[in-house]
């Protein structure tokens, strides 16, 4: 699968940064069948790591029941413009991708 970067949007309001991201990923449960009736193997994001200025602020663990092209939004305390936010994921097949922004 050609891995695509994570799309991130971030806005600082006061000292809280509201981060929203969208991750292109099929999120296959392993129970779905393709047109030929064969099972499509399970392929889903297992771990999402969120860094604020390279420090871990959140780790999410996901099952296959998170929707396709997962959406994830979270809030960071003590953030201000110029800070960096990076979100990266690892899936059950070991593929990985990430995306990062500088907060405005």
């Amino acid at each position, binding site marked *: 699968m050609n891995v*695509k970067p994570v*799309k991130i*949007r971030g806005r600082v309001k006061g000292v809280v940064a509201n981060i*929203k*991201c*969208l991750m*292109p990923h099929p999120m296959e449960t392993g129970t779905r069948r393709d047109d030929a009736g064969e099972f499509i193997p399970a392929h889903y994001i297992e771990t999402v790591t969120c860094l604020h200025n390279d420090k871990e602020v959140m780790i999410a663990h996901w099952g296959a029941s998170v929707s*396709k*092209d997962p*959406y994830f*939004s979270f809030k960071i305390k003590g953030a201000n413009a110029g800070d960096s936010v990076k979100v990266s994921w690892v899936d059950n097949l070991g593929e990985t991708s990430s995306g990062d922004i500088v907060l405005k």
Partner: protein
Amino acid sequence: MTRGTACLVALLTTVGSASADPESDRQALTRYFEQRFPDVEVAAHIDGAYALNEQTREQWLAMEDFPPYEFSVDDGEVLFDANFEDGSGYQDCFDDGNVKADYPYFDHERQTVVTLELAINDCRVASGEEPLAYNGEDIALLSAYMAFASRDSVIDLEVPPEGLAAYEAGKQYYYSRRGQLNFSCSQCHMLMSGMKLRAETLSATIGQVTHWPVYRFKWQEIGPLHRRFVECNEQVGAEGLDYQSETYRNLEYFLTYMSQGLPLNGPASRK
């Protein structure tokens, strides 16, 4: 309203006018929906069923906050910017892509309705490229990008006299009963608009074509308007026609005129 007058009103409103011209058809249809949904702005119908059901609208807005079709728009932009073998590209036919408000139009040489999808293939063939399949992914991605680039431009269709026959054909299709269930599009999307069929709220005729292509969660991908026509046909037991068949292009022509003056808001997400 007593039962008697109700029937009288129903009779009056359904007595068909002779072959009226598109503009008076549109005004009559607009009045119909203004009376049926007094507190819904006509322009609000560009959000389809979500203009008529508050509960589902809330969920829809949560989806539109960061919709999955953004990837299709990005991928479509990559395709749009790529050059053809001969060095030309889509920009030579469509500038920056903000052209969807000009489609569909009635083409004088070919004496037929030309939709954006047809124009995309015209542009490719003119540069010696292979035309794209109308049910393929690439044309959906390109239309997604161009729909996004055309957002907020207003539908300003002009039906030339030579295009009236195509317009009337689309109108006839919309108001004719078809399929084993013997329904016409207008019965669901006009007479029953705002009501429910099982769990589905029925959208109104006006605004039905302003937000295509659409990322339907049912499809888990973005798809063109004619894919929805096929689905609707099959749900009343009628055989779906080919994408970009003349019948479907005429139907899109009629429906686009019914949304005349409304802003484009594609692509959109739907259930």
